[in-house]
C-alpha cells in the first residue's frame, strides 16, 4: 500500500516503533521501559506527521503533547523507584505504592487515551493506514494497558467505583461518537477507544486476565479491520468520508473480511471476539451493581451498533460514488488478511484452552443467551437509529474533548514574561536601565560644569575604597 515516496524512512520508523514496543514489554528495568515508552510516543509522532500536511501536523502535535503528559507522569514516578532503591518492578513494596500508582496510572491513561486525554487517538488516524493498523489496534494503545496488567498486583487496591465510572464513561462516549462519525477511519479509531475503555473497565473490576485476553484478541480483528478499511480507502482513491460510500459489496474479498471482523467485534457466537467478550459480560454480571452493569451492556450495544453501521454504510446502501469506476485489489496484501481471518475464525478455542480453562471458567447457557440478546438487540436498535440520531449527535459530539488552540495561553505568558518582565523590569534593572541612568547622569553632569565624567568617577571610586578600608 505504501510503495510510494520515502518507503525507506517509513520502514525505519516502523522498525523503531516495534523496537520501542519490544523494549517496553520485555524490560525489567524501569529505565529501559522508559526508553520504550518515550520512544513509542515520539515515533508515533513521526509516523503521524509522515506526510507533510497541516491537518496531519495538527493531529501529530495533539498526539505528541498528550503522550508527553503521560511521559511526564512516568518520569515523575522515577522518584518512587529511587525511594524504593531498585528499578525493577519486582521489588515494589506496598508502602510506597499509593502515590506511585497514581503517577503510573495517569501516565498509562494518557497513552491509552482515556477520558481526559482521549483527543489524540482519533486525531492520530492521520498516519498512513498500515501505521494506524499497527498502532491503533495493537501496540501503542496497549502499552498503557500492558503496564497496568503486568503489574496489577500493585494497582489492586486502586479499584474503586469512581474509576469504574470513568472508564465506563469513556466506553459509552466513544461508542456514541462512533455512531455519528462520518470519517471511516475515525470510526474505527473510536471503536478502538471504546474497546480500550472496556478493557480498562474490566481491569478495574478485577478480571485482569480476561482483559488481557480481550486486548490480545481485539488486536487481531481490529488489525484486520484497519487493513480492510485501508484497502477500501485505496479503492476510493483516498476518500475517507463515508457519505460517499455505499454498495461496495461487489468486492467480495473485502466484504468477507470486513464483515467477519465486525462480527468478531460485536461478539458473534464462536468467532474470536466471542471468547473474550462474552466471558467479560458473564463476569460482570455477578460483580457489578445493576446500574453499572446496564451501562456496560449499553456500551456493548453501542459496539454492535456502530460495527453494523460501518458495514451498512460501506456495503449495503445506494451507490454514491463517481459514475465511471474501475478498481482492483492487490493480491499481495490478501495473504496477511487471510491469515488474520483464519485466526479470527479458528483460534477462539485455542485462546480459551490456553488462558481460561485453567481458571475453571466454563460456558453457561446464560452466557450465550446474554450474548445473543446483546447482538440482536444491537441490530434492532441500529435499525431504529434514525430516530435516535439527533439526540446522540448532540450529546456525543459535545462530550468529545477537542484540543483547543493554545494561542491564548502563549500570548498571555508572552505578555507576562516578555513584556512585563523582560521587556520592562529586567531591562530597567539590567542593561538599558543602567545605560539610560548613566546617560542621563552624564548629561546632567555636563550641564553643570566642564568637568569630565571620568575624573569624577575616579575620585568617587577612590573615596569609596578609602571608606571601606579605613
Amino acid at each position, binding site marked *: 500500500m505504501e510503495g510510494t515516496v520515502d518507503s525507506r524512512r517509513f520502514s525505519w520508523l516502523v522498525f523503531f516503533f516495534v523496537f520501542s514496543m519490544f523494549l517496553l514489554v520485555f524490560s525489567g528495568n524501569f529505565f529501559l521501559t522508559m526508553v520504550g515508552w518515550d520512544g513509542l510516543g515520539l515515533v508515533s509522532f513521526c509516523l503521524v506527521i509522515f506526510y507533510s500536511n497541516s491537518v496531519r*501536523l495538527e493531529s501529530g502535535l495533539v498526539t505528541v503533547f498528550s503522550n508527553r503528559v503521560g511521559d*511526564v507522569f512516568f518520569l*515523575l514516578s522515577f522518584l518512587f523507584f529511587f525511594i524504593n532503591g531498585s528499578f525493577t518492578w519486582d521489588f515494589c513494596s506496598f508502602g510506597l505504592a499509593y502515590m506511585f500508582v497514581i503517577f503510573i496510572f495517569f501516565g498509562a491513561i494518557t497513552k491509552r487515551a482515556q477520558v481526559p486525554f482521549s483527543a489524540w487517538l482519533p486525531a492520530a488516524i492521520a498516519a498512513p493506514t498500515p501505521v494506524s493498523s499497527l498502532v491503533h489496534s495493537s501496540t501503542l494503545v496497549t502499552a498503557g494497558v500492558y503496564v497496568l496488567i503486568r503489574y496489577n498486583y500493585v494497582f489492586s487496591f486502586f479499584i474503586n467505583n469512581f474509576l469504574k465510572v470513568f472508564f465506563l464513561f469513556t466506553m459509552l462516549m466513544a461508542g456514541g461518537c462512533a455512531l455519528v462519525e462520518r470519517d471511516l477511519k475515525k470510526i474505527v479509531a473510536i471503536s478502538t477507544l471504546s474497546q480500550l475503555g472496556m478493557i480498562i473497565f474490566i481491569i478495574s473490576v478485577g478480571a485482569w486476565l480476561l482483559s488481557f485476553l480481550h486486548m490480545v484478541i481485539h488486536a487481531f480483528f481490529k488489525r484486520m479491520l484497519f487493513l480492510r478499511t485501508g484497502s477500501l480507502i485505496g479503492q476510493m482513491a483516498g476518500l475517507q468520508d463515508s457519505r460517499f460510500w455505499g454498495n461496495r459489496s461487489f468486492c467480495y474479498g473485502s466484504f468477507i473480511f470486513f464483515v467477519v471482523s465486525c462480527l468478531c467485534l460485536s461478539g458473534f457466537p464462536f468467532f474470536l471476539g466471542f471468547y473474550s467478550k462474552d466471558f467479560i459480560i458473564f463476569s460482570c454480571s455477578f460483580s457489578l451493581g445493576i446500574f453499572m452493569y446496564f451501562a456496560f451492556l449499553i456500551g456493548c450495544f453501542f459496539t454492535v451498533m456502530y460495527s453494523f453501521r460501518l458495514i451498512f454504510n460501506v456495503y449495503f446502501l445506494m451507490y454514491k460514488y463517481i459514475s465511471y469506476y474501475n478498481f482492483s485489489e492487490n493480491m499481495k496484501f490478501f495473504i496477511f488478511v487471510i491469515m488474520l481471518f483464519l485466526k479470527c475464525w479458528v483460534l477462539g478455542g485455542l485462546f480459551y484452552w490456553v488462558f481460561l480453562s485453567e481458571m475453571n471458567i466454563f460456558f453457561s447457557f446464560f452466557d450465550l443467551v446474554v450474548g445473543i440478546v446483546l447482538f440482536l438487540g444491537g441490530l434492532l436498535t441500529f435499525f431504529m437509529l434514525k430516530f435516535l440520531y439527533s439526540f446522540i449527535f448532540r450529546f456525543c459530539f459535545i462530550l468529545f474533548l477537542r484540543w483547543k488552540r493554545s494561542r491564548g495561553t502563549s500570548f498571555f505568558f*508572552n505578555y507576562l514574561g*516578555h513584556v512585563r518582565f523582560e521587556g520592562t523590569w529586567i531591562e530597567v534593572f539590567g542593561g538599558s536601565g543602567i545605560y539610560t541612568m548613566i546617560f542621563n547622569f552624564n548629561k546632567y553632569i555636563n550641564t553643570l560644569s566642564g568637568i569630565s565624567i571620568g575624573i569624577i568617577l575616579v575620585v568617587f571610586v577612590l573615596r569609596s575604597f578609602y571608606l571601606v578600608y579605613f
Partner: protein
Amino acid sequence: MVFSVCVLMKCFLVFLFGLLFGFFDLRYFFTFFVFFLLFFLFDFGSFWFGGVFFCDRFSFFLLYLSVMVFVFCFFSSLIEGWTKNYLLGFNFVLFSIFFLLLISFVSFSFFVFYICFELIFMFIFIFLFLWGYSPERVQASFYIVFYTMVVSFPFLIYIVMFEGVLFSLKFLFFHNFSSYWWFFLFLVFLVKLPVYGIHLWLPKAHVEAPVSGSIVLAGVLLKLGGYGVFRFSSFLLGSLLSYRGYIFSVGLVGGIFSCFLCLRQVDLKALVAYSSVVHMGFGLRGLFCFSFFGLRGGVYMLLAHGFCSSCLFYLLYVLYERFHSRSLFIIKGIGILVPVLSFFWFIFCIFNIGVPPSFSFFSEVFILVGLRGISFYTSLFIGFFLFLSGLYGIFMYVSVRHGDSILMDQKYYVVIREYLNMYGHFFPLLFIPLFISNFYL
C-alpha cells in the same frame, strides 16, 4: 572481572552503533570513539599535575566538553576562520579562549580562575564586536561586558578583602562568613549560568554572534558559571543553605517563563538561547540541592546541555548558510528539502527535551530525585516544567521541518564537515550514560 566484561560490552555496543550509522568513513568514527574512551573508560580520580594544576572529576568532564566544543567550533567556522578573517585574528581569539578555559578548569586558586573567567568574556566581547553579523552586535557585546563587569567588581573586592583565606581552592574548607558578601561571590556565576532575572545578555549575544561564538558560548561558557557555583559552594555551604529557596524559585519560575518565551520567538537562535536559560535554570536547581543526586544531576545537565545546545546552534548555522536568514517564517520545509538534516533536527530537539536514552534525560531524572530530598511536592512541579520543555522542543522541530520552503528549486546536500559535526555531538550524548558508572562523580 564482571566490570571489565560490562565495559567491553558497552564498547562493543558503541562500536556497533558506529557501524550502523555509516554516514561516513569509519576513520572519523574511530577518532571520536577513541577520544571518548580516553576520557570515559577509566576513572582517573583527582590528581595534581605540573605542581600548580589540580583536576578532579568534574573538571575532567568539563575539560572533555571544552575540547569537544572547540573541535566543533573550528569545524563550523572553517571558512570564516581560516580564509576570510585569518589575519584579523579570528583563530587567535578562539584559541586564546580555549587556552583560558583549560586553565580555568584546572586552576587551583580563586584568583587564577577569576582572571581566566573574566578574560574569556573580554575575548568574547572582541569576537562578537568584530565578527558579528549586524549593527545590533554593538549593544549585544556591551551587554555581555557590562553584565560581567558589574558583578565582578564586588567579587574582586571580596577576594581582596578575604585575602589570606581565599588563595586556595581546597574545597573541604568550610568557613562561616556570616556577612552578606557571600551573595556577591555567587552573583558572578549566576550571571554567567544565566539565571532568569539577569539573563538578558544571552539571547542578544547568541543572536548577534557568528556560529563559533554561539557554540563556544552555549557549549562551555555557561558551564563556567556552573563550575564556579560547584567549586565555591562547598566553601560557603552554611550561608547558601539558608537562601537556597530563593534560588530554587527563581530557577523554576524563570524556567517556566523562558519556556513560554521560547514558543513566541521569531528568531530561531533566540529560541535556542531561551532554551539554554531553561536548562541552566534546571541545572542550577540541581546544583543547589547539594545532595548526591542533585549535584550530579546538575553536572550532567551542564554537560548534556553543552552538547545539545551547541549542536542546535550548529544546525541553525547549517540552515542559515542555505536560507540566509534565521527567521522562523523563512526556515521551513527541511523535511522535504534535506531530510537528513530533519533527522538530526529531530534527534537534537528531542535530546533537548530530555528523552531517553540521551544524557539529558538522566540529568533530569537525577535533578528530580535530588529535589525530592528538598521538598517532595515542589519536585512535582518539575512535571509541569518538563511538559513545557517538550512543547518548545517539538515546536522548534515542527516549524523547521514542515511548511512551504522558499528554496524548492535547488538540491541541497549536506557535506561531510557538517555530518561530522552533528555526529560528534550525537555520539557523546548517547554514550556518556553508558560509561557514567565508571566514574564516581
